[in-house]
């Protein structure tokens, strides 16, 4: 199954604008929607937001009135697409319930990308952050109980994604220098790697923006604190992922790649959607994006004299991006990489960091005075007599992260204990 948007015909741009009632779509039923339909809605909203922001940035960096006109025209349509997608989310889906959906997207999207990624270094980049989003899901799921939501996190995830600790959130806070990775090059990287990178940047950026703006909605001080703590990690994730993008591309090449990526993703959603009404929206937007891509390609041919077919894959994209359960893979990643720590662009076992590494200093700065991601678990234990976990495949694969495991044996804690001993000495 392959898809080449360059060989398809889209809807002419002048016919793409919709009226208000067409955009104000009926939302899905939060109690009945399939978890991966919700995931696709959250995900494609993020993709559209990135398309809009990228177009605005391009417009601010060009003096060419013709380019600005084309960008403004297409961007207005992208804004309509974003509304039609994001307005599928119902008003009675609370912020915390929607947050569980966001983290399920982060987990199962990143896991799929890591599994499909042809480059071994980039696979490590995805696997590293995967375990952090996996842990956020667990922290928010415990918060959801405390907020009296009336349903469990597993009702949102549908049991398709396990909920248990990943690399604990308190250890995600690191010196910003250690969030920068090695960029790919469009010339030499596999197209799958290029598409994966654009996709994950958009998704993480949306999560970052969501927590930046919605994290102050709850009244409970602990809920507000947890949102702000995890929002800071999402800033790390956006930095982490955007640093793998090729920084040498022209604005037009970047635009073409964004439009190509949107085509691939709407086609993917169309292939995998089980809700007929939502699938019709994916199909409509795909037809629009094919035209956006054609316009971007035409601009690049005319302005830069470069044919995008020279760098886009001749055969198109081989597989649709798929939201699916990744339980076994996640357990494998937990076993292999839970003790990883970044040192500049590389990943090393945390025990290999030098004793005076900046990570430890940063940890001391931000984690002094109470850590919300730990407090939420402690409060859940106090109020419910234990933690909230949703585990379907047996014990946690890392003994020290089991609810009644020997937590002191967790590698990060052992390294911190070594640090404390050194300081005392």
């Amino acid at each position: 199954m392959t898809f080449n948007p360059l060989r398809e015909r889209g809807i002419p741009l002048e016919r793409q604008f919709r009226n208000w009632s067409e955009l104000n779509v009926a939302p899905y039923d939060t109690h009945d929607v399939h978890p991966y339909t919700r995931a696709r809605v959250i995900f494609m909203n993020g993709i559209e937001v990135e398309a809009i922001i990228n177009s605005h940035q391009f417009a601010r960096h060009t003096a060419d009135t013709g380019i600005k006109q084309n960008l403004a025209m297409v961007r207005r349509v992208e804004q309509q697409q974003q509304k039609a997608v994001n307005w599928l989310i119902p008003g009675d889906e609370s912020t915390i319930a929607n947050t569980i959906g966001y983290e399920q997207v982060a987990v199962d999207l990143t896991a799929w990308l890591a599994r499909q990624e042809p480059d071994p270094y980039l696979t490590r980049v995805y696997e590293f952050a995967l375990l952090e989003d996996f842990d956020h899901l667990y922290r928010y799921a415990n918060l959801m109980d405390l907020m009296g939501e009336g349903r469990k996190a597993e009702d949102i995830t549908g049991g398709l994604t396990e909920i248990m600790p990943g690399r604990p959130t308190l250890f995600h806070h690191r010196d910003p220098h250690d969030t920068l990775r090695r960029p790919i090059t469009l010339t030499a990287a596999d197209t799958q790697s290029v598409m994966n990178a654009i996709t994950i940047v958009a998704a993480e950026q949306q999560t970052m923006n969501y927590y930046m703006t919605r994290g102050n909605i709850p009244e409970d001080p602990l809920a507000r604190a947890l949102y702000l703590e995890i929002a800071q990690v999402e800033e790390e994730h956006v930095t982490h992922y955007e640093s793998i993008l090729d920084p040498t591309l022209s604005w037009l090449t970047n635009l073409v790649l964004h439009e190509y990526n949107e085509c691939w993703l709407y086609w993917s959603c169309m292939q995998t959607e089980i809700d007929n009404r939502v699938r019709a929206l994916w199909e409509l937007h795909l037809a629009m994006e094919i035209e956006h891509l054609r316009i971007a390609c035409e601009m690049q041919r005319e302005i830069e004299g470069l044919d995008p077919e020279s760098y886009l894959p001749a055969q198109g994209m081989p597989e649709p991006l798929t939201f699916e359960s990744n339980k076994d893979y996640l357990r494998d990643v937990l076993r292999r990489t839970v003790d990883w720590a970044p040192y500049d662009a590389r990943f090393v076992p945390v025990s290999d960091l030098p004793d005076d590494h900046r990570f430890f200093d940063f940890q001391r700065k931000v984690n002094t005075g109470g850590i919300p991601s730990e407090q939420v678990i402690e409060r859940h234990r106090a109020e419910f007599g234990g933690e909230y976990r949703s585990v379907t495949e047996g014990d946690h694969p890392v003994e020290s992260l089991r609810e009644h495991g020997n937590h002191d044996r967790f590698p990060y804690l052992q390294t911190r204990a070594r640090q404390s001993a050194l300081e005392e000495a």
Partner: protein
Amino acid sequence: MAEMKDMVNKVTDAIGGTMAKLGAASTTSADGFVEQAAIGDAYEIAAAGIALRRSRNDAVRTTAARMISDHTTSRHHLQAALEMNETRGVALPPDRLDTRRETMLEHLAEASEDSFDRTYADQQVLAHEETASLMRSYAEGGDNPQLRSVALCTLPVVERHLAHVKHLRAQL
């Protein structure tokens, strides 16, 4: 006697550095780039370690600390690049310095107390001129896109280092 030895060592370093800069300016093969970039980082980190142990000048010590941090970063970026498919088939970097850089470190270690800071600054200018030349030539004409990217990302940092150590030398 010590002054004479310092002078001979300085001339030796300068001749080696000038020849090396010429060689660096024509490096376009991936294996050659990786070897020279890795040795350059290793030399910088080792020289800065000596400077932190020996110098009492705050400006020199601050420079040395910056060199350790920045050249550790560039070392890690090179290592990360070598983990990618884009560099498949490129030889891994050597695990030790070449004779010229070892000799430079010996000269630094042997420098008299009075001339240490000046020797470190002189070597830093030579070494950064060589590294800037290597990064510039490979970024423009190197045969591997990922390593060209490494050179392109590293060059501005090295150029700022070069301006900084020239300023440092002028102040000593």
